[in-house]
Protein backbone atom coordinates (compact mmCIF):
# COMPACT_ATOMS: atom_id res chain seq x y z
CA UNK A 1 0.00 0.00 0.00
CA UNK A 2 2.90 2.32 0.73
CA UNK A 3 4.15 1.73 -2.81
CA UNK A 4 0.76 2.68 -4.26
CA UNK A 5 0.80 6.00 -2.39
CA UNK A 6 4.25 6.88 -3.76
CA UNK A 7 3.35 5.79 -7.30
CA UNK A 8 0.00 7.61 -7.43
CA UNK A 9 1.63 10.60 -5.73
CA UNK A 10 4.31 10.71 -8.45
CA UNK A 11 1.71 10.72 -11.21
CA UNK A 12 -0.46 13.32 -9.44
CA UNK A 13 2.52 15.57 -8.86
CA UNK A 14 3.74 15.28 -12.45
CA UNK A 15 0.36 15.86 -14.08
CA UNK A 16 -0.49 18.55 -11.51
CA UNK A 17 2.63 20.51 -12.47
CA UNK A 18 1.90 19.95 -16.17
CA UNK A 19 -1.67 21.28 -15.75
CA UNK A 20 -0.67 24.23 -13.56
CA UNK A 21 2.26 25.27 -15.75
CA UNK A 22 0.18 24.97 -18.94
CA UNK A 23 -2.70 26.94 -17.44
CA UNK A 24 -0.34 29.67 -16.24
CA UNK A 25 1.38 29.96 -19.66
CA UNK A 26 -1.94 30.17 -21.53
CA UNK A 27 -3.53 32.63 -19.08
CA UNK A 28 -0.46 34.91 -19.15
CA UNK A 29 -0.51 34.81 -22.96
CA UNK A 30 -4.18 35.74 -23.07
CA UNK A 31 -3.69 38.67 -20.71
CA UNK A 32 -0.84 40.00 -22.85
CA UNK A 33 -2.79 39.40 -26.06
CA UNK A 34 -5.54 41.73 -24.86
CA UNK A 35 -3.02 44.60 -24.94
CA UNK A 36 -1.51 43.81 -28.34
CA UNK A 37 -3.38 44.25 -31.65
CA UNK A 38 -3.72 41.18 -33.85
CA UNK A 39 -1.62 42.66 -36.67
CA UNK A 40 1.40 42.72 -34.36
CA UNK A 41 1.10 39.03 -33.47
CA UNK A 42 3.19 37.16 -36.02
CA UNK A 43 1.25 33.93 -35.40
CA UNK A 44 -2.21 35.48 -35.94
Amino acid at each position, binding site marked *: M*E*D*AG*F*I*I*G*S*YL*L*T*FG*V*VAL*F*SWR*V*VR*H*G*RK*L*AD*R*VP*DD*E*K*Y*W*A
Partner: protein
Amino acid sequence: MTTFDPTGTESVPVTSAPAPHDSYRVGTGTRATRVLGLFTIVSMGWLVVFGLGFSPADRDQDEAVRILYVHVPTIWLAYLAFVVTAIASALYLFPKAHSLGWDRLAGASAEIGVAFVAVTLVVGALWGRLTWGVFWQWDARLTLTALLFVSYIGYLAVRRLGGTHEQRARRSAVLGLLIVLEIPLLHFSVKLWRSLHQGSTLTDPSGDVKMDGLMLFSLFVGVIAFTLLYVWLVLHRTRAMAMEDLLDDRQLDSALEARRAEARIDAAPESAPEPAPEVGTEDR
Protein backbone atom coordinates in the same frame (compact mmCIF):
# COMPACT_ATOMS: atom_id res chain seq x y z
CA MET B 1 -24.18 30.48 -45.16
CA THR B 2 -27.76 29.24 -45.48
CA THR B 3 -29.85 26.92 -43.36
CA PHE B 4 -33.22 25.23 -43.66
CA ASP B 5 -36.10 27.11 -42.01
CA PRO B 6 -38.38 24.50 -40.35
CA THR B 7 -41.32 26.93 -40.16
CA GLY B 8 -41.32 27.83 -43.81
CA THR B 9 -40.49 26.39 -47.16
CA GLU B 10 -37.45 28.43 -48.14
CA SER B 11 -33.86 28.65 -46.99
CA VAL B 12 -32.88 31.77 -45.05
CA PRO B 13 -29.40 33.28 -44.79
CA VAL B 14 -27.62 33.12 -41.45
CA THR B 15 -24.88 35.68 -41.00
CA SER B 16 -24.51 35.91 -37.22
CA ALA B 17 -22.12 32.96 -36.77
CA PRO B 18 -18.52 34.17 -36.31
CA ALA B 19 -15.99 33.11 -38.89
CA PRO B 20 -13.87 30.21 -37.65
CA HIS B 21 -10.81 32.29 -38.51
CA ASP B 22 -11.69 34.70 -35.67
CA SER B 23 -12.99 32.15 -33.21
CA TYR B 24 -9.67 30.36 -32.64
CA ARG B 25 -7.44 33.42 -32.56
CA VAL B 26 -7.37 33.85 -28.80
CA GLY B 27 -4.25 34.67 -26.83
CA THR B 28 -1.19 32.78 -27.99
CA GLY B 29 -3.12 29.86 -29.48
CA THR B 30 -3.75 28.95 -33.10
CA ARG B 31 -5.49 26.03 -34.72
CA ALA B 32 -2.14 24.21 -34.92
CA THR B 33 -1.44 24.58 -31.19
CA ARG B 34 -4.96 23.38 -30.37
CA VAL B 35 -4.48 20.25 -32.45
CA LEU B 36 -1.07 19.74 -30.85
CA GLY B 37 -2.60 20.25 -27.40
CA LEU B 38 -5.25 17.65 -28.16
CA PHE B 39 -2.61 15.11 -29.23
CA THR B 40 -0.68 15.90 -26.04
CA ILE B 41 -3.71 15.26 -23.81
CA VAL B 42 -4.50 11.99 -25.63
CA SER B 43 -0.91 10.77 -25.33
CA MET B 44 -0.83 11.73 -21.62
CA GLY B 45 -3.99 9.65 -21.16
CA TRP B 46 -2.27 6.72 -22.87
CA LEU B 47 0.72 7.16 -20.58
CA VAL B 48 -1.49 6.89 -17.48
CA VAL B 49 -3.31 3.83 -18.85
CA PHE B 50 -0.14 1.99 -19.87
CA GLY B 51 2.03 3.22 -17.00
CA LEU B 52 -0.41 2.40 -14.22
CA GLY B 53 -2.44 -0.32 -15.89
CA PHE B 54 -1.12 -2.51 -18.69
CA SER B 55 2.60 -2.36 -17.96
CA PRO B 56 3.87 -5.29 -15.80
CA ALA B 57 5.73 -5.02 -12.51
CA ASP B 58 9.51 -5.27 -12.66
CA ARG B 59 11.47 -8.29 -11.37
CA ASP B 60 13.75 -6.14 -9.19
CA GLN B 61 11.88 -2.87 -8.64
CA ASP B 62 8.42 -4.41 -8.44
CA GLU B 63 5.64 -1.77 -8.81
CA ALA B 64 8.05 1.15 -8.26
CA VAL B 65 9.08 0.81 -11.92
CA ARG B 66 5.82 2.61 -12.82
CA ILE B 67 7.32 5.86 -11.51
CA LEU B 68 9.99 5.62 -14.22
CA TYR B 69 7.35 6.13 -16.93
CA VAL B 70 6.99 9.74 -15.75
CA HIS B 71 10.47 10.24 -14.26
CA VAL B 72 12.42 9.41 -17.42
CA PRO B 73 10.21 11.51 -19.78
CA THR B 74 10.43 14.57 -17.48
CA ILE B 75 14.24 14.55 -17.44
CA TRP B 76 14.20 13.86 -21.20
CA LEU B 77 12.03 16.99 -21.64
CA ALA B 78 14.43 19.00 -19.46
CA TYR B 79 17.49 17.82 -21.47
CA LEU B 80 15.68 18.65 -24.71
CA ALA B 81 14.70 22.09 -23.39
CA PHE B 82 18.24 22.96 -22.31
CA VAL B 83 19.79 21.72 -25.55
CA VAL B 84 17.27 23.86 -27.49
CA THR B 85 18.25 26.79 -25.24
CA ALA B 86 21.90 26.26 -26.17
CA ILE B 87 21.18 25.91 -29.91
CA ALA B 88 18.94 29.00 -29.91
CA SER B 89 21.62 30.90 -27.95
CA ALA B 90 24.22 29.98 -30.58
CA LEU B 91 21.83 30.99 -33.37
CA TYR B 92 21.38 34.37 -31.69
CA LEU B 93 25.05 34.93 -30.95
CA PHE B 94 26.88 33.80 -34.09
CA PRO B 95 24.90 34.93 -37.18
CA LYS B 96 25.16 38.67 -37.80
CA ALA B 97 21.38 39.13 -37.79
CA HIS B 98 21.20 38.64 -33.98
CA SER B 99 17.49 37.86 -34.16
CA LEU B 100 15.72 38.31 -30.82
CA GLY B 101 13.37 35.48 -31.82
CA TRP B 102 16.19 33.00 -31.03
CA ASP B 103 16.74 34.67 -27.67
CA ARG B 104 13.06 34.35 -26.80
CA LEU B 105 13.09 30.68 -27.83
CA ALA B 106 16.13 30.14 -25.57
CA GLY B 107 14.42 31.84 -22.61
CA ALA B 108 11.08 30.06 -23.09
CA SER B 109 12.80 26.70 -23.41
CA ALA B 110 14.88 27.25 -20.26
CA GLU B 111 11.77 28.14 -18.21
CA ILE B 112 10.10 24.88 -19.27
CA GLY B 113 13.28 22.92 -18.59
CA VAL B 114 13.59 24.32 -15.06
CA ALA B 115 9.99 23.37 -14.22
CA PHE B 116 10.57 19.80 -15.37
CA VAL B 117 13.95 19.35 -13.68
CA ALA B 118 12.14 20.27 -10.45
CA VAL B 119 9.53 17.57 -11.17
CA THR B 120 12.32 15.08 -11.96
CA LEU B 121 14.03 15.77 -8.65
CA VAL B 122 10.86 15.36 -6.56
CA VAL B 123 9.55 12.30 -8.43
CA GLY B 124 13.06 10.81 -8.38
CA ALA B 125 13.13 11.25 -4.58
CA LEU B 126 9.85 9.31 -4.32
CA TRP B 127 11.27 6.55 -6.53
CA GLY B 128 14.48 6.57 -4.45
CA ARG B 129 12.50 6.12 -1.24
CA LEU B 130 10.88 2.97 -2.65
CA THR B 131 14.00 1.56 -4.31
CA TRP B 132 16.89 2.65 -2.07
CA GLY B 133 14.96 3.37 1.14
CA VAL B 134 15.99 7.05 1.20
CA PHE B 135 14.67 10.18 -0.48
CA TRP B 136 18.08 11.70 -1.19
CA GLN B 137 21.73 10.70 -1.42
CA TRP B 138 24.66 12.95 -2.35
CA ASP B 139 25.22 10.67 -5.32
CA ALA B 140 26.92 12.06 -8.46
CA ARG B 141 23.80 11.82 -10.65
CA LEU B 142 21.47 13.36 -8.06
CA THR B 143 23.89 16.11 -7.05
CA LEU B 144 24.60 17.09 -10.66
CA THR B 145 20.85 17.17 -11.40
CA ALA B 146 20.38 19.56 -8.48
CA LEU B 147 23.31 21.62 -9.79
CA LEU B 148 21.71 21.72 -13.25
CA PHE B 149 18.48 23.00 -11.68
CA VAL B 150 20.30 25.74 -9.76
CA SER B 151 22.35 26.71 -12.83
CA TYR B 152 19.25 27.28 -14.96
CA ILE B 153 17.55 29.18 -12.13
CA GLY B 154 20.64 31.41 -12.36
CA TYR B 155 20.22 31.63 -16.14
CA LEU B 156 16.61 32.82 -15.70
CA ALA B 157 17.75 35.34 -13.07
CA VAL B 158 20.39 36.70 -15.47
CA ARG B 159 17.68 37.17 -18.11
CA ARG B 160 15.88 39.50 -15.70
CA LEU B 161 18.85 41.70 -14.85
CA GLY B 162 17.59 44.62 -16.92
CA GLY B 163 19.09 46.56 -19.82
CA THR B 164 18.06 46.42 -23.45
CA HIS B 165 16.70 43.28 -25.10
CA GLU B 166 20.00 42.94 -26.97
CA GLN B 167 22.03 43.11 -23.75
CA ARG B 168 19.77 40.50 -22.17
CA ALA B 169 20.09 38.29 -25.25
CA ARG B 170 23.89 38.53 -25.45
CA ARG B 171 24.66 37.77 -21.80
CA SER B 172 22.10 34.99 -21.52
CA ALA B 173 23.27 33.41 -24.80
CA VAL B 174 26.82 33.16 -23.46
CA LEU B 175 25.54 31.62 -20.23
CA GLY B 176 23.19 29.26 -22.10
CA LEU B 177 26.14 27.93 -24.12
CA LEU B 178 28.27 27.41 -21.02
CA ILE B 179 25.85 25.67 -18.67
CA VAL B 180 24.61 23.19 -21.26
CA LEU B 181 28.01 21.49 -20.82
CA GLU B 182 26.69 20.13 -17.52
CA ILE B 183 24.30 17.82 -19.41
CA PRO B 184 26.88 15.35 -20.84
CA LEU B 185 28.62 15.32 -17.46
CA LEU B 186 25.29 14.60 -15.75
CA HIS B 187 24.27 11.96 -18.26
CA PHE B 188 27.55 10.04 -18.07
CA SER B 189 28.01 10.56 -14.31
CA VAL B 190 26.77 7.02 -13.63
CA LYS B 191 29.69 5.71 -15.71
CA LEU B 192 32.31 8.21 -14.55
CA TRP B 193 31.75 7.69 -10.83
CA ARG B 194 30.50 4.82 -8.71
CA SER B 195 26.87 5.76 -8.46
CA LEU B 196 23.87 4.59 -6.47
CA HIS B 197 21.67 5.64 -9.37
CA GLN B 198 21.00 2.96 -11.95
CA GLY B 199 22.76 3.18 -15.30
CA SER B 200 20.90 3.13 -18.59
CA THR B 201 17.20 2.28 -18.16
CA LEU B 202 16.80 1.07 -21.73
CA THR B 203 19.86 -1.00 -22.47
CA ASP B 204 22.25 -3.38 -20.72
CA PRO B 205 26.05 -2.79 -20.72
CA SER B 206 26.38 -4.55 -24.08
CA GLY B 207 23.92 -2.06 -25.62
CA ASP B 208 21.01 -4.49 -26.12
CA VAL B 209 17.49 -3.42 -25.14
CA LYS B 210 16.76 -5.15 -21.83
CA MET B 211 13.15 -4.04 -21.20
CA ASP B 212 9.94 -5.98 -21.61
CA GLY B 213 7.89 -4.95 -24.68
CA LEU B 214 5.04 -3.33 -22.74
CA MET B 215 7.47 -1.54 -20.42
CA LEU B 216 9.38 -0.20 -23.40
CA PHE B 217 6.14 0.88 -25.08
CA SER B 218 4.97 2.70 -21.90
CA LEU B 219 8.25 4.55 -21.71
CA PHE B 220 8.04 5.38 -25.42
CA VAL B 221 4.49 6.78 -24.95
CA GLY B 222 5.79 8.90 -22.07
CA VAL B 223 8.66 10.32 -24.11
CA ILE B 224 6.33 11.13 -27.04
CA ALA B 225 3.72 12.73 -24.71
CA PHE B 226 6.29 14.94 -22.99
CA THR B 227 7.94 15.90 -26.28
CA LEU B 228 4.55 17.04 -27.63
CA LEU B 229 3.96 18.92 -24.38
CA TYR B 230 7.32 20.65 -24.74
CA VAL B 231 6.57 21.82 -28.30
CA TRP B 232 3.11 23.06 -27.25
CA LEU B 233 4.48 24.94 -24.23
CA VAL B 234 7.41 26.47 -26.07
CA LEU B 235 5.16 27.79 -28.86
CA HIS B 236 2.84 29.48 -26.35
CA ARG B 237 5.62 30.82 -24.16
CA THR B 238 7.69 32.19 -27.08
CA ARG B 239 4.67 34.07 -28.38
CA ALA B 240 3.94 35.48 -24.93
CA MET B 241 7.57 36.62 -24.67
CA ALA B 242 7.32 38.36 -28.05
CA MET B 243 4.35 40.34 -26.68
CA GLU B 244 6.22 41.09 -23.44
CA ASP B 245 9.11 42.56 -25.47
CA LEU B 246 6.72 44.54 -27.65
CA LEU B 247 4.90 46.02 -24.64
CA ASP B 248 8.23 46.71 -22.96
CA ASP B 249 9.40 48.66 -26.03
CA ARG B 250 6.14 50.59 -26.14
CA GLN B 251 6.37 51.43 -22.47
CA LEU B 252 9.90 52.71 -23.03
CA ASP B 253 8.82 54.72 -26.09
CA SER B 254 5.93 56.33 -24.21
CA ALA B 255 8.18 57.10 -21.21
CA LEU B 256 10.70 58.76 -23.56
CA GLU B 257 7.94 60.68 -25.31
CA ALA B 258 6.56 61.86 -21.94
CA ARG B 259 10.05 62.97 -20.90
CA ARG B 260 10.54 64.86 -24.17
CA ALA B 261 7.17 66.57 -23.75
CA GLU B 262 8.12 67.49 -20.19
CA ALA B 263 11.43 68.91 -21.45
CA ARG B 264 9.60 70.98 -24.11
CA ILE B 265 7.29 72.44 -21.45
CA ASP B 266 10.26 73.29 -19.22
CA ALA B 267 12.10 74.95 -22.08
CA ALA B 268 9.09 76.84 -23.46
CA PRO B 269 9.15 79.99 -21.20
CA GLU B 270 12.88 80.54 -21.83
CA SER B 271 12.76 80.21 -25.58
CA ALA B 272 9.40 81.88 -26.17
CA PRO B 273 9.70 85.43 -27.62
CA GLU B 274 9.07 88.32 -25.27
CA PRO B 275 5.59 89.73 -25.76
CA ALA B 276 5.76 92.98 -27.73
CA PRO B 277 5.12 96.07 -25.58
CA GLU B 278 1.81 97.61 -26.26
CA VAL B 279 2.36 101.06 -27.67
CA GLY B 280 -0.01 103.98 -27.33
CA THR B 281 -2.81 102.23 -25.68
CA GLU B 282 -2.89 104.67 -22.81
CA ASP B 283 -3.32 107.64 -25.16
CA ARG B 284 -6.53 106.35 -26.65
